[in-house]
Structure formats: structure tokens, C-alpha cells
């Protein structure tokens, strides 16, 4: 695999690397026939990013599906090319300073050095200076999230500037944000953990009119809560890319997908898990679906089960005091999103949920020894490696068991 990025695109590539660095700890490097894919997933598997840089981005792009350079790798993989993952710190070493890159880099060569098992990045800079980096990598399976963008009933399309301005209004330490949509308006507010009775928390709320969006389709009135920090990382990339954003989402508990693209050049998909609401009025179904995707070790789920049994909670969940369940309260859940999905998230459990449809409530496990905050659950994004490479693939297979699952 061999390609050359011209000066104008190196900055975009570097910015993509920075965005990936903010989310995950490893960057999956996947050369494909139509371009180069860079992906990552965060440790709790609640955020997934995939950048696909198409061939026109590159000055030259050579791709060999059955590469002789792969050696043993090609025997395991069904000749669909070289794949590796690189530690984020390693990639950042190459693309450390964006201002320097913008100022002085004239081209970036990416080569795979089969002999020494290194991925070679060579930045040719002004004044004849050359910076070469031979990076160590790990072989891996393809990383592919399960999501169906096209099936989302809610679609919002806007300029990145809109969301950047919105995000700027929220305090920088805020972890999560809730977005409540109706056909008349979009309401964004800071999501605060009710367990935390700290009165010092500043809550912010903003409302946007449908006119602010270039495309506004709301099929299901809903409230979704997702990680603001991840959103900021995404917006930082879009700022450099200068493209419009599309948000696809359904209900709390279903993944929220932000995608941005420049036709023929690149496409980026950011999939974020959203917190399931416990509102009986809105997301009863969502609750059911999500529970199945978790192992019993996830603390969240247990709370929900308990709460459902009580049946005394009216919407909206946030305002209900958790004190009723004081015996099982557990502090420190500032960010439901960031709670690590336990390592025991079965691959087998995941495999059942191949389709994005909502499974039966009966499948919800009853045993929940752990404590968890009452009305929150992490919706995990399903990760299964795919042997089909298109982004919208729904059917996927089990991940590589050798692969250290996100930890």
C-alpha cells in the first residue's frame, strides 16, 4: 500500500488524526480499494469514528488487495488487504503540530514497509526538509460499527458553525448534552446527573428553530442524550473541513450518527451512543432494546429493571429524585456515557443483535446484582468486524477474538 497526499489535504488528514486521537486510543488503518479508511472506537465503545478518504484526495494511491507484502496476514484475512492499528500517540508524533503542517508540509507519503513491518510516513516540507517516521503497528481485524443511518426517522442537516456556536455556550467541563426535538423546535440542554445534588452546577438550555437547519425532518419526537466532549472533537474536524453536518438519530438508546462529506473526497461518520430515557411516554421501547445489548455487569441496566418494576416514574426521568432508591444508589456516575462497558460484554450477546430492530422485552436479563443510577443507561454501539466494507452494512460477523476488545 502506497499513497501520497498533497499539501492541501495533509492538514485535513492531520485534523482527522487529531479528532481520532480525542476519541480512541488506537487508530485503525484500513486501505480500501476506493480510498483509505481511518477508524477508532473509544474504550467504552460508546463512540465510533470512521473517516474514509477517497482516491481523489491523494496525488497517487496504490492499493493491492492481495498484497504479497502482507506475508502471513493475507492467509488469515481473505485477501482483502493490509490492515493495522496504530497507537494514537504514535500517529500524533507524525502530525503533532497543525500549524507547522499547514505552514511547511508539501506532501505526505504513506508507505507500508513489509520488510521491517513498519508503516512509513514521510512528510516533505519546504526548504527541502524531509521528516520520515517509521511507525510500529499491530495487525488487526477490520473495525466496523453496526448502524443504519438511512433508517433514522430524524434527520437534521446544518452548517458546522451552528453546532460549534451552540456547543460554545455550554460549559467546557460539561460531559453530556441532551437534545429534545419536536417538529417545531430543537432544544439543547446540559445533561446533569441527578445523583449529583451539587447546586453549583450551571445548567444551560438553548432552543433552535427549524429554520436554522438546511434540512429538518423529525419523524419521532424524542430526546437524545450524548457526549458533548465527543461532539466537540467532531466539530473541531468539521471546522477545518468546512462541510455541512447531518445528524441521524432515532430515540434515546439508539445510536446518533453525525456524518459529513465532501463529494468524491472524503466521508466521515461519527456514531455516538445515546443514553436511554426512562420516560414511559417516549422510550419504553427503547429501553427494551438496549438492555439486550449489555452484559449483566453493566451497572446501568440493573437500575432500569428496578425502576420499571416500580412503575411510578413519570416522565421526564431527570427530574425524579433517585433518593427513592437510595439503597442502590451509586455515586460517581457523572457521565453515564463514559462508564466502561465491562469486558464481559459477550461477543455472543452482540451477535444476536445483528439487526437494528427492537427485540422483545422478554429478552431482558433479570439478574442485576449491581447498582446503578436510576434512569440512565448507556447504549452501546455494536462492534463487529465486517468482511464487507461499505459503511452502511448491517450484517456483520463476530470480531476477532484475538483482538483485545477495546481495552
Amino acid at each position: 500500500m502506497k499513497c501520497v497526499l498533497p499539501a492541501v489535504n495533509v492538514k485535513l488528514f492531520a485534523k482527522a488524526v487529531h479528532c481520532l486521537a480525542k476519541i480512541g486510543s488506537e487508530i485503525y488503518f484500513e486501505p480500501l480499494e476506493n480510498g483509505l479508511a481511518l477508524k477508532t472506537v473509544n474504550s467504552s465503545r460508546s463512540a465510533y469514528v470512521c473517516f474514509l478518504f477517497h482516491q481523489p484526495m491523494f496525488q497517487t494511491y496504490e492499493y493491492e488487495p492481495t498484497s504479497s507484502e502482507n506475508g502471513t496476514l493475507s492467509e488469515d484475512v481473505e485477501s482483502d488487504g493490509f490492515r493495522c492499528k496504530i497507537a494514537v500517540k504514535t500517529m500524533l508524533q507524525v502530525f503533532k503540530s497543525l500549524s507547522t503542517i499547514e505552514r511547511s508540509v508539501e506532501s505526505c507519503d504513506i508507505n507500508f514497509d513489509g520488510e521491517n513491518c513498519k508503516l512509513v510516513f514521510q512528510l516533505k516540507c519546504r526548504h527541502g526538509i524531509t521528516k520520515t517516521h517509521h511507525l510500529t503497528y499491530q495487525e488487526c481485524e477490520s473495525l466496523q460499527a453496526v448502524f443504519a443511518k438511512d433508517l433514522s426517522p430524524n434527520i437534521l442537516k446544518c452548517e458546522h458553525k451552528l453546532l460549534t456556536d451552540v456547543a460554545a455556550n455550554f460549559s467546557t467541563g460539561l460531559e453530556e448534552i441532551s437534545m429534545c426535538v419536536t417538529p417545531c423546535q430543537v432544544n439543547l440542554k446540559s445533561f446533569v446527573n441527578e445523583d449529583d445534588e451539587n447546586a453549583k452546577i450551571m445548567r444551560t438550555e438553548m432552543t433552535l428553530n427549524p429554520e436554522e437547519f438546511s434540512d429538518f425532518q423529525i419523524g419521532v419526537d424524542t430526546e437524545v442524550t450524548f457526549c458533548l466532549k465527543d461532539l466537540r472533537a467532531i466539530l473541531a474536524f468539521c471546522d477545518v473541513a468546512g462541510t455541512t453536518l447531518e445528524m441521524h438519530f432515532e430515540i434515546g438508546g439508539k445510536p446518533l450518527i453525525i456524518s459529513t462529506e465532501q463529494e468524491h473526497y472524503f466521508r466521515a461518520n461519527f456514531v455516538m451512543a445515546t443514553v436511554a430515557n426512562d420516560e414511559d411516554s417516549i422510550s419504553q421501547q427503547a429501553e427494551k432494546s438496549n438492555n439486550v445489548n449489555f452484559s449483566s455487569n453493566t451497572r446501568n441496566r440493573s437500575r432500569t429493571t428496578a425502576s420499571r418494576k416500580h412503575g411510578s416514574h413519570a416522565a421526564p426521568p431527570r427530574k425524579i429524585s433517585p433518593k427513592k432508591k437510595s439503597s442502590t444508589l451509586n455515586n460517581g456516575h457523572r457521565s453515564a456515557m463514559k462508564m466502561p462497558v465491562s469486558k464481559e460484554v459477550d461477543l455472543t450477546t452482540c451477535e444476536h443483535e445483528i439487526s437494528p430492530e427492537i427485540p422483545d422485552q422478554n429478552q431482558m436479563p433479570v439478574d442485576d446484582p449491581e447498582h446503578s443510577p436510576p434512569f440512565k443507561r448507556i447504549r452501546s454501539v455494536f462492534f463487529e468486524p465486517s468482511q464487507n466494507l461499505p459503511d452502511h452494512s448491517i450484517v456483520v460477523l463476530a470480531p476477532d477474538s484475538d483482538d483485545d476488545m477495546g481495552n
Partner: protein
Amino acid sequence: MVLMTQSEEENFALSASIDNARNVSHILKAVHFKDTATVFATENGLKVTVEDSKCIQANAFIQEQVFQEYVIREDSITFRINLDILQECLSIFGSSSPSTTAMRMMYNGYGTPLVLTLEEDGAVTDCSIKTQEPDQTLDFEFSAANVINKVIMKAECLKEAFNELDVTSEVLQITMSPDAPYFRLATYGLLGQSHNDIPKDSSMVEYFECGQTQSNRYRLNLLKPSVKAVNLANKVCIRMDHRGFLSLQYMIKNENAQVCFVEYYCCPDEEFEDDNEPAM
């Protein structure tokens, strides 16, 4: 900006005054990587030396022309002083204000403290810093005659290179050669191997003379302090002698556009194959 003059007769061994103390503190910043320094004063000016691990030495030269007044009554004066304190005193009025601090420095010989009087906008401060017994400083025996390879380049490209060095690498390998890659900085870190090549025909290179290919490794943590100097410099001269000893000379301009030099000497890491003793 009136300087306080001493009422008694001035018979100090060393007496110097300068209108802008930043011209001194700015240069000292480039060598400030340890808390003590040895000051050598001669009729030509001041030399401030800082050393570490007996492997690296930095010298800052502040020639007497930089001072408005410079009187020395002995042939040479040497003392050791705490550089942290000296820098703090020089910037006692704050280093970023537009107005300048005038400074007078007085030293009365062996055993006496270094007395500084600083004045800015009518406020006056007196500082008295204890001096210490000077230690023997290293003599790297680096002479121009033994220089095999020499490159003079603009500081920017070296700035970028030094600031982007892989910190997980223990060594920095510097290769200077009459053939490609001409000038290369290489690191071997946990993340992989990186190198930065600057060809001899680059517009950043002003002078390039390399007699033979030399490639030596230097401890990165010892060279790290020289990054301070490169960030302040306009030009850098890199020389390697027949033993592989490295000399980095930085040309730094102060606020009055006067040029001062800062020099770093570093000895290379020796391979353990032949000798039993490292070049320490």
C-alpha cells in the same frame, strides 16, 4: 530612567551597568537549565557557564559592548552563583512590561556577594546574592582546527525539528555527511523511528562543509536544554569534531539588536563494543 550611583568611591572588582536588564536575562534564559552557574568576567565581557552530568556544558557570552558601563579591576573574576535567583532578580519588575529595567551590577571580589541595583520608573530594588566557590568547569578541548563537519543554518528549521523530537527516545543521533542525507536528526523511540533530514542545498542552510560522514548518538535528555536556546536564536552553527563531540552555537539577538552567542557542548554516547568505559 536614572540609575542610582554609589555615593562612595567605586572600587569594586567588577562594576557594570545596563539600561535594559532584559538584554542580560534573555541570554541567560538560553542556558538556564540548572540552578547554579559559574560566572567568568574578563575585560571582554561576561561568560556564564552551566553544566550537567559532566557531559554537557552551556556558555552564554555577554560581551562588554552590551553594557552601557563596564569596569573590571582584576584580570579575571570567577564565582559561582545561583542562577534561579539571579534570573528572578533581573526580572523582579516583571519581564513583560514595555518599560525597561535598568540594572547595575557590582562585585567586590572573592567572598563578597553580587550586588544588583534595579530601577524601573522610579522604583528601585537592591539585591544581594551570595556567591560561591567556583568549581572547575569542564574543558571539552573543542578547537576549531579539529572540526570535521560544520553547518550553519537558520534557527527555524532546527526549532521545528527539536520541538518535534520523539521524547520517548533516549538518544538523538546526528549524522553529518558530504553525501545524502547530509544532515539528519534521528530518534529511536517506543513509537518507532523518526528522522528529520535537511539537505545541504536547502534555503535554510547558509554554510555547509562536511569532510567525512559522521554519525553520533547523544543523550536526548542532555540536549533537551538546548531547545531553550534554539527557540531564542536566529541562527545556529553545528560543528562536530574528530571525536564526535558536538558544538552548537546559537546566535541570539537581544532587544537592542545586539548579537550574543550561546554555545552548547555535548559529548557523544560511546559504543560499548571496543572500550569498556563510556565517554562520560
